[in-house]
């Protein structure tokens, strides 16, 4: 992890007008709904998926296509610290936005006489923090595989594949296929329902292990991919 890399990426995201507009929209819309329909409560927020995606898109792919990596890797920077720095930067930005959004939402709900419980608020924030780190890890891997915004394409294809498999499994009555489809779905949406973890029932070990496994696998393979990457040094000579 490299502080200079993390800071540079955060500033890079902040300097993109398209991303800022999308983020403003995704940040503000649920808040408007909360003001208009406070009965729904904190459920208006969702899990922050959209915002995290906007932050993550192209996180490595764009660097691959633009050619900045040649200059970057001429420095004493390990490829693993590059990958992990990209992950951390996206995760932290996601955490910040989701947390701010949750706090604003709670404030607005309180003003509309629908104050959410502290425990609920903390659970929502906690869930979103975990999703930020998890989804960022998945996008880190996908982004290392293709240039530009290929990571979004891969995410879409994998997500759809999971759903299609689940649908076919119901049709063809194949529990194995259904399980594979479900696992793919879990892979592209790494989250932990903290309410389950801190609830009075059994600790959901599979949920916890799946999350940790997904995050570590994605990061490890992203590093391996970047280690093996030959930077196409395209020039006229």
């Amino acid at each position, binding site marked *: 992890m490299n502080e*200079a890399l993390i800071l540079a990426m955060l500033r890079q995201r902040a*300097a993109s007008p398209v991303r800022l507009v999308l983020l403003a929209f995704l940040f503000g819309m649920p808040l408007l709904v909360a003001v208009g329909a406070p009965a729904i409560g904190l459920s208006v927020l969702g899990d922050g998926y959209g915002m995290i995606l906007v932050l993550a898109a192209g996180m490595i792919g764009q660097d691959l296509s633009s050619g900045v990596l*040649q200059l*970057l890797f*001429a420095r*004493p920077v390990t490829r693993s610290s590059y990958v992990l720095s990209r992950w951390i930067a996206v995760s932290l930005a996601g955490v910040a936005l989701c947390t701010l959004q949750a706090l604003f939402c709670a404030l607005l709900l309180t003003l509309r006489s629908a104050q959410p419980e502290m425990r609920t608020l903390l659970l929502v924030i906690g869930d979103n923090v975990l999703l930020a780190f998890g989804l960022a890890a998945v996008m880190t891997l996908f982004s290392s595989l293709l240039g530009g915004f290929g990571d979004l394409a891969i995410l879409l294809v994998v997500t759809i594949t999971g759903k299609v498999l689940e649908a076919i499994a119901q049709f063809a009555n194949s529990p194995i296929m259904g399980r594979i489809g479900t696992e793919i779905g879990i892979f592209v949406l790494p989250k932990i329902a903290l309410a389950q973890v801190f609830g009075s029932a059994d600790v959901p070990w599979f949920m916890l292990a799946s999350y940790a496994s997904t995050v570590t696998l994605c990061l490890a393979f992203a590093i391996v991919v970047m280690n093996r990457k030959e930077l196409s*040094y395209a020039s006229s*000579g």
Partner: protein
Amino acid sequence: MSAGIVVESLSKTYRGGMVRALDHVSLTIAPGEVFGVIGPNGAGKTTLFGCLLGFLRPDSGTVTIDGQAVDDLSVRAVTGYLPERLVMDRWMRGREFLAYHHALARLPKADRARDVDAALARVGLEADAGGKPVRKYSRGMLQRLGLAQALLGHPRWLFLDEPASGVDPAGVVLFRRLLAELKGRGVTVLLNSHQLDQVERVCDRVAYVSKGRVEAIETVSAGAGAARVLRVRWAAGGTPHAREVLNAIAERAGAALESVGATEARFAVADDQAAARLLGALVAGGVPVIEASPEEGRLERLFLAGEGGPR
């Protein structure tokens, strides 16, 4: 004593062996040397640079810098690189870009502001240029900024890919001055350029690369005091000067006649004094000398010779 850059039998193919970018290339670049690489497009210079910088993995052969693997962190820490196509985040200002690379090079934070200002001054960028966003830079300014970035932290190994492209004449002069300064500090420079006159002026040795092979390595006289070939022209008209006469004059002056033409001849001289003696002797011998200049086109001849096959 540092081992320099040692390339041994480096081979690299693309597309599953279809394209042979490098074919058992071997080179040794001594520490402190300014080494030029020239050659036609698609000759493999790009690939060579890529392998030297660790972006590409060779299929066979080895390349070491100071005895270590090229992508070793300790080597990276003392390497500076100016890519041909400089790409950077458009939102950054010049100063921020340099500060970013200063941090990436793990240079001390306390020196950052000072080093960045010094770097900007060194490449002739005005102080306020550092505050401008990079997207507003002209081509020449970008090139200077790239050079500044490569020089951060006083690297021992400098890789410059087409450093003078797009730079105005003032920049070219500055670049030459910088290289001379670097040479004085013992920095090893590897230079890839199409501008042969620049290469001839600054480099100690030049490798001519064609079709993935090093076809020739020329030792180029970089300094005014070095041995070189002098091309002397005299006024047309009058009796033609016999080869033997010119030869005799040259030998008396301590030079050697290489070739004779109608109004010019080429002489090899050992140094400046020999050149002065030769010219004086020619004038005294009745040759109406109008011009004497260092031989041009030596490197260009490599290109022409290369097309006909290895020398």
